[in-house]
């Protein structure tokens, strides 16, 4: 049959452990199916030529019944082909369905303009990086329409649905860069095409350490802003003076506020650190003590970064940020609820 010899090159070079669960049945089925089709079509062609009407008045042989032996063999072969398709595909199916325990979790968010891959440390990348030999489990959702995640080299194809979680997993066996894209049409302008980079385990750890270090290539304040976005602060604190569950971060550094227990606090480095690590000890009046303590979640350097960033949001932050906080804040700015 066409391409029988080249068939092995149709599949992209296998680069994952479960590829074999797809490639095995594919090659087996291909050989069997090619022979089946070649046999049936060949027989039809042979009969048409062999039993050509030689004499205009000729009639075909009288009606016959199916030959029990040939019919039985023929049907058995077809049933065998179907059973093979089922049985050969079954191990791969189980493998695809059940991710191994302890697989490295990566979150995937698909949108019309691309993928976001979120690593356990919180780092978000637009390409997927994995380590060779370590199973990776993808937990995926879509923010708009149905997309897909497909890495042909890994034999991974999974639809990503809005409002649902889809999972897929694979274990890379080769360190290389592979095509990763959506195989499901997401409308005009959908651009879900990126790369899967598989590293040797040591290189992967090095890569993750490098990209996860939020201080490389960022000023202290920029790192603080990134933490604000990533650590969930923005759910309750705005930066434009609007009041949410907690006070806005606009114009807080260097200002004084009354607390729930009637004291007055000056927002300085020490108060910020206290408010992050043990936020419900000294709460600004008018707010409930409901914030999650970040003790053990953020280190000194991160808090320093957040402080530096809060200074940039405050009219009293000062350009020379290491300067002593000005004492005696403006009493007019006291309630922390002013708009704008």
């Amino acid at each position, binding site marked *: 049959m066409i391409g029988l010899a080249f068939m092995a090159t149709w599949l992209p070079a296998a680069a994952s452990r479960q590829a074999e669960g797809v490639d095995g049945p594919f090659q087996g089925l291909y050989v069997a199916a090619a022979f*089946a089709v070649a046999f049936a079509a060949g027989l039809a062609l042979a009969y048409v030529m062999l039993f*050509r009407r030689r004499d205009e008045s000729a*009639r*075909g042989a009288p009606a016959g019944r199916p030959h029990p032996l040939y019919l039985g063999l023929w*049907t058995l072969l077809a049933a065998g082909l179907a059973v093979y398709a089922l049985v050969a595909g079954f191990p791969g*199916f189980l493998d695809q369905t059940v991710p191994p325990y302890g697989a490295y979790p990566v979150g995937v968010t698909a949108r019309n303009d691309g993928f976001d891959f979120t690593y356990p440390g919180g780092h978000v990348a637009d390409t997927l990086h994995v380590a060779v030999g370590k199973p990776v489990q993808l937990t995926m959702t879509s923010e708009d329409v149905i997309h897909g995640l*497909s890495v042909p080299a890994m034999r991974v194809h999974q639809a990503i*649905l809005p409002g649902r979680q889809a999972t897929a997993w694979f274990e890379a066996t080769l360190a290389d860069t592979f095509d990763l894209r959506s*195989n499901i*049409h997401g409308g005009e302008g959908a651009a879900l095409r990126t790369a899967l980079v598989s590293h040797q385990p040591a290189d992967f750890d090095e890569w993750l350490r490098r990209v996860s270090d939020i201080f490389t290539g960022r000023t202290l304040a920029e790192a603080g802003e990134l933490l604000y976005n990533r650590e969930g602060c923005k759910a309750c604190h705005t930066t434009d003076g609007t009041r949410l569950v907690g006070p806005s971060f606009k114009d807080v550094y260097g200002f004084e506020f009354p607390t729930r227990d009637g004291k007055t606090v000056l927002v300085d480095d020490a108060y910020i650190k206290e408010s992050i690590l043990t936020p419900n000890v000294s709460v600004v009046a008018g707010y409930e003590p409901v914030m999650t303590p970040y003790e053990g979640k953020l280190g000194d350097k991160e808090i320093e970064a957040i402080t530096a960033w809060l200074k940039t949001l405050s009219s009293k932050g000062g350009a020379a940020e290491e300067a002593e906080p000005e004492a005696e804040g403006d009493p007019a700015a006291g309630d922390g609820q002013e708009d704008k």
Partner: protein
Amino acid sequence: MSDRTANSPLGGYLSAAVPGGWFATRDHKRIGLMFAAWTTGALLLGLMFGILPMVRSLGGMEDDAGGVLRALTYQRLILVFMFLAPAIPAVLGHFLLPLQLGARNLALPVFSLWSLRLYAAGLVLALASVLAGGVSFGWTMPTPLSLTGDGVFWLLAAGLACSGFSWFLVGVNIIVTVHHHRAPGLGFFRMPLLSWSLYLGAYLLVMSGLILAIIVLYLAGARGTGRGLFGPDADPLLWLNYFWFATRPVVFFALVPAAGVVFDVVAGIGRKAVTGYRMVVGSMIALLALSVVTWGVHLSGYGQAPHLTFVFSVLSLLGAVPVALIAYSLLATLHRGAIACSAPTTFTVAFVLHAGIAAVMGLFLASPALGAYLNTTMFATAQIDYVMWGGVLGAFLAGLHFWWPKMTGRPVNHPVGRFGAFLYLIGVNLAFFPQVIQGVGGAPVDVGALEPGPTGLTEIAALGWLFLVSGLIVAIGNLVGSLWVKEAAGDNPWGACTLEWTTASPPPVDNFAVRPAGGDPYGT
């Protein structure tokens, strides 16, 4: 009777004065011919929309991705819903069913007329929607993309709904005719296999047609109002489940009548009775029944529960047995026939090859792990192309060439027809086998033509389209050209035994001068 029609006018129903003329006629033969014209129009439109993405792949229209997406969307919608599903029941069913049953007309002539009008309205509305800018969200119209995507959808939805209602009318008409209008003595198991397959497929035409029409209207409603069954709050898989429930059987109720056509053609050109007639009928019933419970194979890899995927796999794979029985019977019927060297013969061989390829591709797609990999690749696109361009179109052309003398009273030029069939056979395989290879390589389903840059395979496929189009031009040109031939075809040029050959060519308005008596379908 045969020499009466020599020297035009064509005679029979074609030139008789009948109430309603052509456009309001209730004569099944005229409606069948008009259906042939309309479905050929749909086929040509699909062909045009199929060639556009090919042009882009080869380097033209680089920056019009949106145009290509629209072309791909309409190519599939028009071909699947306006050619693949209705072509054989609407054209050959309308024309041949009453003749094969020895009846004067279909049981519900008003349904015939309105099925044609709805079909035509559907095609015109679909075209209007193209002219209004078209939509580009793919032929499966998945929510929520189809709720938010740009374009004028209601025109297309109205067109598809008209189409679905037209299937419904055709299906009901066929079922009622078979039950009530068989000639005396023509029991169910004396019907030719074409009549059987049309009758069996008609049940699914009724089911799928209604479901399709209704869900498309619901979808348009949800798009307009932001509420309803398929609205933004619905599970995105709900629509796809409904869609595939209606569409999965299409492939089967198109291929089963295609097989019915080929059986009657083979019996006719080989002057031989069908071997294993009852076995074929049983296999057709089994295949159609399975098609109703296997829609989920299209949703493996979509987050469907794994045990469901497995059940759907098993049910789909069961289909291998009836397909094998039908193939056995077809080959056994060819065996020791007196096979005429004719155009339908070549189309029949093409049908066996293409339907065989489509069937084994089904095994790949239903195999549990492999299916999840291939389902979202061009492999799935190629399978539907093999069913459509290969299987159903091949059988349709075999049938048209075979019954053309009956339809028009004019003989077909067989050497030219065989040349067309040969070009067609080469074309289908060159055009669609590269898609199989690209699909295995991971190219995405439906929109594979948007892959960057031409590969060697794209050029081969383009060459294939060239062959395919040339083959169709030769074949259709040959058929139409035969109308100017001066000699008459004769009432029974094939020496076949089914009832349609016992009347004049072309048949008179009332089909039979004397009501025939039914006997064994293949004269044994």
